[in-house]
Every structure is written in structure tokens, then in C-alpha cells.
């Protein structure tokens, strides 16, 4: 994999991680209210998929989507301001963390009703197919979302009409507190795509380069008229389901073991001269980024200045985003009404 791409992937992941950890802090301070579903642990999926996509592709996601928007290119300022509910938020403060929309970047929304994104994704794909454009739709969803009826309905239609959609399952093994063995009769999610004749593959979602490669291949097939494709990424979230969830339904040992597989650790490894050994990875433990970075720098695998640069850049972007959000005005009720009627044109109603 090209060093440039790896650096981009690493930067995105570091930005996402820094953004999320800061968001958690701001949540603690009361600057962010409501549900807040964080992404740490799963960065390799978003970074891998989104870096492989073209600007002309569309993205549809769930409620854990503000990290996706960030990695898709929505300015951190606008994402943070939305989390703060401010007027300069990308959704004008009307949407919040679960409803990030960015028309300019074809980020077609965060949806908070599990399973709602499939139909919307195939609808966009239907339009692309009608217009015979070389575009595709990327549809993110979790392992829990696979059991919603719309999964079945939408995948059938996507396959029936060979629509250009890439279905990406972020399988973090849990639907809130319900582990996959307790919510799905078939736990290898990618196998369920066979019921619709949709080609599917499973990749290690903690390994960003594999996710990136699989996405490239799948998008390529789609653009060549191959119809919908399916990728299952096995991953893990380090935190609870949302800020309201301590995640105590998971064994501590499991969380620790998964944290050792921190995707950022892996990416750093690949961007550097040699991969860290399994032993090194295993030892890394919970605070992977800090500890591994220190050791890698020591070993000369990554120039200190380079790594520090990436990290600082991410921190600076996030700090700037928080300041921006803090100073952004609250939206007005007049703005809310304008959004409610944004499609009314010049028609005057009662």
C-alpha cells in the first residue's frame, strides 16, 4: 500500500480518535447533550471505506456517523458545532449528532432509526442507475441493524435491479448490550447476503488497509456494472454504546483484549518501516496509541517529528473545532421555521 494513502488513513483515524475523545469531554462539560455514540475502536472501517470512495459517491450512515462525516471531509468545525447544536453546525443545529447531513460532500445523512438507511441508500442508487452514472452509494450499518426487515427488503431490490450500492456492515458484535450470538441466528453476517445473490466478503475491520483494499475492489465491481456488493468488517467499539452506556454487559477481559487490537496501532505499524510484532501489539494494552507510539519512535519506525505532527495536527483541528462551536450562535426559531418550510418555494399556505 502506498505510503501516502497510509498517511491519509492514519491522519483520518487520529483525527477521528481525537475528535471523539474531545467530544466525550465536552459531553461531560454539558456542551454536548443528548445521545452521543462514539467511534473509538472502529476507525479503521470508516477510514478504509471512505478513503477508497470517490467524491462523486454517496454515503448513507446511522447514528454513529459523525466520525464518518469527518473522514468524508466535512470540516471538524461544522461537525462539532452540530454536536453543540449551534447555527454553524453542518445541519444548522437542527439535526444533532445523529443527523449529520452534508449535501456538498454527498453525505446523505445520519439516521437514528436502525435499518432506515438501507431503503434510502437503494433509492439513491436507483436514481444513479436510471441516469447511468458511474457513481455508487455506500451504506453503513451495524450487526444489530442486520435483523431489521428493511435489510431483507432492500438487499433483495438492490440485487433484483443490480443497483450500485456497497453495503458495509460494521460488525462490532453488539447491538447496545446484546451480543451477536444472542441477536442473530447466523453470526457471520456476510453469509446473509447470499440470500439475495449479493457477492460478499468478510474483512478484518481492525486493519485499515484490508478495509481499504476490499472497498476498492468492491467499488470497482460496482462501477463495472456488477451490481450491489457487501463487505462485513469485524471490529469493536472501545466505549459503551453511547455516552449514556457504561457498557457493563461486556466482560472486562474482552474489552481489554480488543483494545489491544486497536486499529490505529495497526495503521501506524503499516505506515512505518516494519510491522510491530504480535507480542508488541499484545503488550500495548488499553492505551495503545500513546504507548505504542512511544515505543515505535524509540525503535525508529516512525519519525518522532512526523508522528507528533500528525497527532498535533489532529489535536489542533479538534481544538479549533471546539472553539468554533463554542463561539457559534444558537439557531433562531425563525431559522427553524425556515428549515421546516425550505421546500415550499413561493407557495403561500394558510
Amino acid at each position, binding site marked *: 500500500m502506498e505510503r501516502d494513502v497510509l498517511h491519509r488513513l492514519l491522519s483520518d483515524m487520529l483525527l477521528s480518535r481525537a475528535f471523539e475523545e474531545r467530544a466525550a469531554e465536552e459531553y461531560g462539560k454539558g456542551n454536548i447533550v443528548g445521545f452521543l455514540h462514539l467511534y473509538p475502536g472502529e476507525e479503521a472501517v470508516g477510514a478504509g471505506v471512505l478513503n477508497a470512495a470517490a467524491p462523486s459517491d454517496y454515503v448513507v450512515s446511522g447514528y454513529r456517523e459523525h466520525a464518518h462525516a469527518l473522514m468524508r471531509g466535512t470540516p471538524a468545525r461544522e461537525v462539532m458545532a452540530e454536536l453543540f447544536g449551534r447555527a454553524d453546525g453542518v445541519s444548522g443545529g437542527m439535526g444533532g449528532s445523529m443527523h449529520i447531513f452534508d449535501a456538498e460532500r454527498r453525505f*446523505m445523512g445520519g439516521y437514528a432509526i436502525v435499518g432506515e438507511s438501507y431503503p434510502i441508500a437503494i433509492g439513491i442508487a436507483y436514481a444513479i442507475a436510471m441516469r447511468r452514472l458511474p457513481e455508487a452509494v455506500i451504506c453503513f450499518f451495524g450487526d444489530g441493524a442486520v435483523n431489521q426487515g428493511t435489510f431483507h427488503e432492500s438487499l433483495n431490490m438492490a440485487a433484483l435491479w443490480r443497483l450500485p450500492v456497497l453495503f458495509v456492515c460494521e460488525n462490532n458484535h453488539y447491538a447496545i448490550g446484546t451480543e451477536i450470538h444472542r441477536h442473530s441466528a447466523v453470526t457471520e453476517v456476510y453469509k446473509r447476503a447470499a440470500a439475495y445473490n449479493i457477492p460478499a466478503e468478510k474483512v478484518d475491520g481492525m486493519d485499515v488497509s484490508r478495509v481499504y483494499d476490499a472497498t476498492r475492489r468492491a467499488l470497482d465491481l460496482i462501477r463495472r456494472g456488477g451490481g450491489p456488493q457487501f463487505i462485513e468488517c469485524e471490529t469493536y467499539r472501545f466505549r459503551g454504546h453511547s455516552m449514556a452506556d457504561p457498557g457493563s454487559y461486556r466482560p472486562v477481559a474482552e474489552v481489554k483484549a480488543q483494545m489491544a487490537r486497536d486499529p490505529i496501532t495497526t495503521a501506524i505499524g503499516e505506515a512505518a518501516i516494519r510491522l510491530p510484532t504480535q507480542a508488541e501489539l499484545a503488550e500495548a494494552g488499553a492505551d495503545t496509541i500513546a504507548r505504542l507510539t512511544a515505543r515505535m519512535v524509540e525503535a525508529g519506525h516512525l519519525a518522532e517529528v512526523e508522528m507528533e505532527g500528525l497527532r498535533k495536527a489532529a489535536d489542533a483541528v479538534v481544538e479549533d473545532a471546539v472553539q468554533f462551536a463554542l463561539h457559534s450562535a444558537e439557531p433562531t426559531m425563525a431559522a427553524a421555521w425556515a428549515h421546516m418550510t425550505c421546500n415550499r418555494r413561493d407557495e403561500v*399556505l394558510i
Partner: protein
Amino acid sequence: MSEETLYWQALNKAMDTELEADESVFTLGEDVGLVGGSYRATQGLMAKYGEWRVRDTPISEGSFTGLGVGAALVGMRPVVEIMTVNFMLLALDSIINAAAKIPFMSGGQFRMPLVIRVPGGIAKQLGAQHSQRLEHTIMNVPGLRIAVPSTPQDAYWQLRQAIASDEPIILLEHELLYFSKGPLDILAEAPPMHRAANRRPGRDVTIISYSRHALLSAAAAEELAKDGIEAEVIDLRSLKPIDWDTCAASVEKTHHLLIVEEDCRFAGAGAEIAATLGERCFGALDAPATRLAGLDMSTPFNGTLEAASIPQVADIVAAARKLCRPAKTPVAAAAE
């Protein structure tokens, strides 16, 4: 200029015109293509426009309605036909949580030029699950508009207006109206989609209704006239928004308000009408705003009971008469 046309033909003509005029218009639903729609509204269109623009779908209401939402997000103008309103319950997430909210939630970034056509109402012994009138279920949702055409002319106008609009609009079509006839002038200028129509001027009582029951109300008004009661009949044409000005002006003239609806009475569409006009026309009303509505009962299959479960012309006549002349005996009334 105007020709006697069947209601379904008016819809068909409107669809045809819009499909012809704009490549971004397409329609989809169960059996809309090869079969031409359960009520013929899309007859002949697949042959003319091909299967991508007139798309037969699997039985997957939740997702094909959501497909319409997605397509609308990127500038298409989908017309989703849900075979009957009873199946719309399976599509409400796409309608209420997605279509109605996305323009707002996105801070005004997206348009939602989505039309959903739904036959509904009590037809002829279709049983409890196929006889629903769910107008009320969707009226409470901010962000939606609801049109209820009762004539071929309105069906033609309102479908075209709905397709042209950038707002999500639901057209509730009545199953018993598809084979009703009326004049259609395709060149006539349309009133605004939400404007109520005064179907018959009167001075003694205002009857407000919509869809098929607006026609029954007009028939009742003819009966009432023989009795010397001049009823003004308002056909709402739109349930969301409601044209309050037209309604209130009539009530202020007649001082009596009868609301006629096929929907079940409890929390039906009539409740909103009675509540708003009861408040707005409080001083003008000589008698309470009165609702004549369907029974709060699942629809019986038996034909006689089915008919008895919703207002018929005679019921409307009786209710209007009672409202206008509460204290008078029939003899005294006849002597007037």
C-alpha cells in the same frame, strides 16, 4: 374544453403528462407496471416509458417507500403507489421519520419532492384490515402535506401539483371513486393545492367534508334544499394544511357547522376541524360544532353493518336538520 372522465383516467392522464414532461419523474409500486395498477392509475405507462420509470416492486412497502425518499434526495421526483392505505402502516417509518423530517433535520439542505399515492377508505366488504381510513394517523406529522381529491378534476390537478412540489405529499384517493365520472378540463387553471372548494353555496348550515364524503354531503344538501334548508358544502381537498379561511368564512355566515367524515370519530380528522373552528368561530356558532363520523369500530365484513358503520346521505340529512332546527317538530318545520 371539459370532458367527462373517470377518476382513474384523470390520474392516469396526470401521470402520463408528468412522465412525458420530466425525466426525473418515475413511479413505482406493486403491480403498477405490467398490470397497470390495481385501480388502473398507471395503465399503459410501463409500455410507454419502460420498466425503470414505471417499476413493479416486490411486496416490501417499508423499503420501496424509502427508496422513493432516497431518490427524491438526489433530485428525482418519485411517485410511490402504496397499493392501499392499509399497507401504509408498514411504510410509516420511511414517511414519518425520513421523508417528513430530512429537509428539517438537515438544516434545509435537501428537498423532498416525493409523492405517495394511496387508495383507501371503505370500499365494498373488504373486511376490517382492508377498510381503513388512516388520514388521522398522518395528519399529526409536521412536514407532510395531504391531499384528498374527490373529483376527477381535482385528482388530475392535485397529482400534477404534488409532483411539481418539492414537499412530501400524500394523495389519499378513495377506492370507491376510481370509477366515478366527472368533467375534466386539462387546460383549466388549478387553484392552489390546499384550497378548499365551496361545492354548493348555502346560508343555513356549513357542511365540511372531504373525499368521497364530500360528494355524499353535496347529495345530502340537495335533499335538505327540498326541505328549505340551504346547506353550504365545503370540500376540504387538503387535510394538511386545512384551508381555515374558507371554512371560517362559511361558518360565520351560516352559524352552524356539521363535519362529515368517514374516519372513525374518536380522534379522527373531524376532531381537528371541530377544535380549530370551534375556537376560531366561537362567537359565531349558534350550536356546537358537530361531528358525524364513522363508528369507533373495526369495519364489519357484513355489507349491511359495513354501510351502517359510516355516515350515509340520509344520516347527513338528519344530522344537518337536527342541527338547524333542534327544537322544532317535523310538522312545524314542514310548515315554514
